[in-house]
């Protein structure tokens, strides 16, 4: 199953490397988001206190929604999703491959976003690189786990473009809360290890529960 998931991931990445469609649009959109926040919130060169963590996660959530919608739209237009589902593979492997593709894409976006926000909002985001990447990774997996399932479910639904954010954001509220609070704790002058560890543990628990639920639900909602 891992091998199949890897094959799907490699297929998605190959398509992406050749066209660059989702990566470029997502990245550009995320950067635009951050710039809008910078124009709205930075006054006379002074950024708002504690704003960087929130802006980072809003940008990830917005860009993630865009990438998720697009990732499945492409499969739908080319009718390749049906081929993927008809292939003699276990459904959870298809889900896992798609999930990994989204996570890789968002990780690339975050790699650009973090230094940009650190620069524009004068935040010490890179002070604890290990914890920052741990929280970003756990949060991105949680967000993408729910998002991949919903985007896949909505492929055949009417008005899927508007429905995806409507369904996705209420469910991912805990990821946003934990991500923002955990990142904000990293930005404090004194490192608050207990707080960071709590939010990280909550994100890991969320990931475990929602990935398990998604693997189970994917099978039954994609069958018809």
């Amino acid at each position, binding site marked *: 199953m891992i091998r199949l998931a890897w094959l799907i991931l490699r297929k998605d990445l190959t398509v992406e490397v050749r066209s660059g469609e989702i990566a470029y649009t997502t990245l550009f959109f995320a950067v635009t988001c951050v710039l809008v926040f910078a124009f709205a919130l930075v006054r006379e060169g002074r950024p708002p206190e504690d704003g960087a963590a929130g802006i980072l996660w809003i940008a990830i959530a917005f860009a993630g929604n865009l990438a998720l919608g697009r990732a499945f739209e492409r499969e739908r237009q080319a009718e390749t999703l049906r081929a993927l589902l008809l292939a003699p593979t276990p459904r959870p492997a298809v889900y896992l491959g798609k999930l990994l593709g989204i996570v890789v894409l968002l990780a690339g976006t975050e790699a650009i976003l973090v230094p940009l926000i650190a620069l524009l909002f004068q935040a010490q985001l890179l002070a604890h690189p290990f914890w920052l990447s741990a929280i970003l990774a756990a949060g991105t997996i949680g967000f993408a786990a*729910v998002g991949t*399932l*919903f985007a896949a*479910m*909505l492929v*055949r*639904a*009417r*008005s899927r473009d*508007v*429905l995806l954010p*409507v*369904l996705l954001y*209420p*469910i991912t*509220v*805990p990821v946003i*809360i*934990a991500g923002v*609070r955990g990142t904000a704790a990293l930005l404090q002058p004194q490192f608050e290890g207990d707080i960071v560890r*709590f939010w990280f543990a*909550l994100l890991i*628990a*969320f990931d475990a*529960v*929602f990935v398990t*639920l998604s693997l189970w*639900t994917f099978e*039954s*909602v994609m069958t*018809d």
Partner: protein
Amino acid sequence: MPKWFLRAAVVCAVMFVLSPFVIANADYESTMGLVQKIFYYHMPSAWMFLVAGIVCGVASVRFLISGDPRHDRTAWAAAEMAVIFGVVTLVTGPLWARRAWGTYWVWDARTTSSLVQWMVAWAYLILRRYGGPGSDKLAAGLALFGVANVGFIYISVNYWRTIHPATTVVPKLPFTMGFPLWYCVASFTLLFVLLLKMRIRLEEQRATLDSLYLSLDEQH
């Protein structure tokens, strides 16, 4: 409609008409006075809001496993109940909070998780309304995630900050305040059951009508 429905509906109406008198006779709470009486409607509706969410989640899981449309109709009806009782809860809560906490809204564990649960119920209904064919299974998946989500939101905001009164005060209430509360809980529970039953029946009738149309088409 079953025979008990009409009788129960009359009982429920009488109970709601009498409820202001029962509440008016309850003791005044020493610090908050009259405003505290909102609690007699707030807490029962909040409980029904929670029950509706649980019914929707359980029915959705059973629908995903069995594919039986009866569970799907129950889940849909329960989601609508969650939105209705959620409105009552979310309107009465801030009115009380304005007096008790000095502000209409506080991002505490219970208020935040209630609001998000209410939004998930809305998302469920939007999906059913605009999702087109096949949205029943998608909505069941959403309901499953919504139920799993409430715990996480609760833990996360609780760690962050909380000031909402705990439910442990309920068994300790004196009789003069406890009786009106349980009276209201009974009224709201009855209302919930009646509305749910009515809504499920409406969907059943629709399903019957659809199948009749289909069989008519086949004959021609």
